[in-house]
């Protein structure tokens, strides 16, 4: 099995999973949600195989260009979602989460993203590449779940105000957002900021250089710190919390993509 075959197979399974999940939302048949979950899980296994093959063939961590890192981000998002659904039974989040993953996979396979693996430039030849990128992206995957549940919260909340109840109560969605951030925040702090500083110190000789990507990861961190403080100390919940979580994920996305395309700096690899 080649890496491309595995990648495409996983991509197809994610699309199948999304279809089952959407069928579940409209038909309310639990069986469909279960099939969606299984398709995603099998997709994850095959996707893992694709990443392993890529690592063996290129001889380095599978996130050194945009194709690789988008694919890994998609993998992490599925991984995070499978854990969260297994624990909190949030089937209704499934279809929208799968849409995000499909968007990531589609972007990864688009011709805009060079897929050819390149030999590592000297600065990336470090095991910190593994630690820094994978832990950060896993953290951001949990932020992605909070993003989806926060949007669903806003929808559910306005429906409930009109007296319409939906599958997952708004209160439930609010709490899932918080729980996702409670997982994502320590991961993001460790991978993005702490490991990033350690690696910067080893490679560039300075743990902090006010590089745009560094500043944007700090901005993302500030937004989620704001989420936690307004919620825990000031008791904010619901709509305002949901909006902060949405902003936080958008900041994380900008840190991940935007900085590379709109701002220039040291992080010019991916």
């Amino acid at each position: 099995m080649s890496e491309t075959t595995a990648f495409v197979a996983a991509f197809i399974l994610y699309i199948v999973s999304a279809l089952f999940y959407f069928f579940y939302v409209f038909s309310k048949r639990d069986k469909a949600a279960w099939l969606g979950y299984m398709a995603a899980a099998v997709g994850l296994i095959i996707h893992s195989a694709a990443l392993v093959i890529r690592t063996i063939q290129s001889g380095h961590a599978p996130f050194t260009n945009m194709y690789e890192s988008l694919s890994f981000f998609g993998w992490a998002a599925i991984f995070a979602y499978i854990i969260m659904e297994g624990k909190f039974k949030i089937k209704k989040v499934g279809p929208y989460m799968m849409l995000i993953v499909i968007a990531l996979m589609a972007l990864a396979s688009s011709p805009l993203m060079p897929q050819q693996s390149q030999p590592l430039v000297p600065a990336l030849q470090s095991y910190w590449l593994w630690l820094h990128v994978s832990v950060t992206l896993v953290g951001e995957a949990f932020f992605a779940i909070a993003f989806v549940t926060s949007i669903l919260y806003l929808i559910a909340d306005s429906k409930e105000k009109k007296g319409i109840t939906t599958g997952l109560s708004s209160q439930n969605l609010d709490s899932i957002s918080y729980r996702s951030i409670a997982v994502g925040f320590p991961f993001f702090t460790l991978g993005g900021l702490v490991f990033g500083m350690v690696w910067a110190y080893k490679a560039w000789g300075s743990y902090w250089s006010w590089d745009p990507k560094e500043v944007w990861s700090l901005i993302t961190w500030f937004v989620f710190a704001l989420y936690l403080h307004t919620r825990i100390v000031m008791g904010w919940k619901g709509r305002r919390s949901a909006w902060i979580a949405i902003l936080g994920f958008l900041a994380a996305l900008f840190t991940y993509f935007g900085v590379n395309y709109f701002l220039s700096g040291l992080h010019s690899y991916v």
Partner: protein
Amino acid sequence: MKSFIQVFSSVKLAIFLLIVITLASILGTLVPQHRTPEEYQAGYGELSGLLMRLEITQLYQSWWYVSLLFLFALNTIVCTLTRLGPKLKQTFTPTILAIPKQITRYREHKKFEKPGDLKSIGTQLRHILKKRHYRIKEEEKEKIRYVLAQKKTLGLFGSDIVHTGILVILLGGILSGLWGFRRTINITEGSTVEVPQADFQIRMDKFVTEFYPSGVVKDWKSTLTLIDSGQEQMRKTIEVNHPLSYQGFVFYQSSYGWDWNNPRLDILVRETGEETQAERIQISIGEKHLLKDSKTEVTALRFVPDFVITEGNRVATRSQQPNNPAVYLESQRNGEIIFRGWIFSKYPKFSQSHEGGEQDTSFVLQDFQATQYSGIQVTKDPGTNVIWVGCTMLMLGLFAAFYWPSRKLRFQLIGSGPRTEILVGGTSKKGREEFHKEFQSIISELRRSQ
């Protein structure tokens, strides 16, 4: 003083500062930092003066950004300290007595009766709680036994550890800013240089560039020897991501380049007179070379690796890469200038701004060699270790705050005869489901125990 504490203990201030610092930081990523006034003038026009006056062009080092960070640190200190006192009291010198209402107010609470006198039930309870790693405090008053059990109290201090970690990181940043130093020194193979701000030297024994088969650079490696008081102390090959540390100094492989001030130039001189003859000579900058005909002299006056003509019609080098190497030559025959101008390695036919009349002599820059140097970044940063301590505290604190929820149980055992009435209530900072399970299992075990 009191109003000072009131202002700085406010979480609202913390949130306000967090928002302002976030917005300021965003601004700093939109305006390129640390450029020259000319670049700002070109990019922003009239706005550039304002940007520079407000120090937006070096925002993260500006007095106002640093002041915001300082206020934020002060806010964090006061917030943390004012909330620490009650938490410490609650943990180390808690009130053990509790009125029933206090217990029934907890999310988990239960009242039941079981056979057994106060003493034996107290023993059973202690056993059950100890098994679950609770720390127990007891007090008896008017035939009622009060029991307070707590565990994972570290979780209560998670946020304080996080805040302290952030303050330690800021402190590390201040130390780096005040006493950290960073300089790049270019060393050619075989030479020894004094390490800035240190009393030892480093010698570059070997510098190699490794390539991938495709021709892309794989790595730069410098073999360095540390010489302290005339003694060779240490020898190590450093490469990107693998620096060398010695006495608080760290040496990084940072760049590379060529010493273009002293290149060896191979020049082909061709005379097309009655008799065509060519002579290949090797010269350095400033060196006069007499050709075999004993009457023609050639001098190389200047060399640039990447020839460019700037706005002021002056010759400069665009980069340190040998993209367009050129040499400024002068040639005299019998004291008369026959040639003066630039010759280009890549464009041998093209010679600019000739001076001199005779055209029967041409010059070609055939080869050029310069010593390659390795750019070694030397740093000494007393803040670094402080930063790592802060980072460790930050992570430990986050873990404690999110995944080490403190739990508390309060009991009232009332009984003077063979039966005892038990009132129990408890709370957990987080993880309600897990705590609910533990609470239920404690009650059922206490009911069953003999």
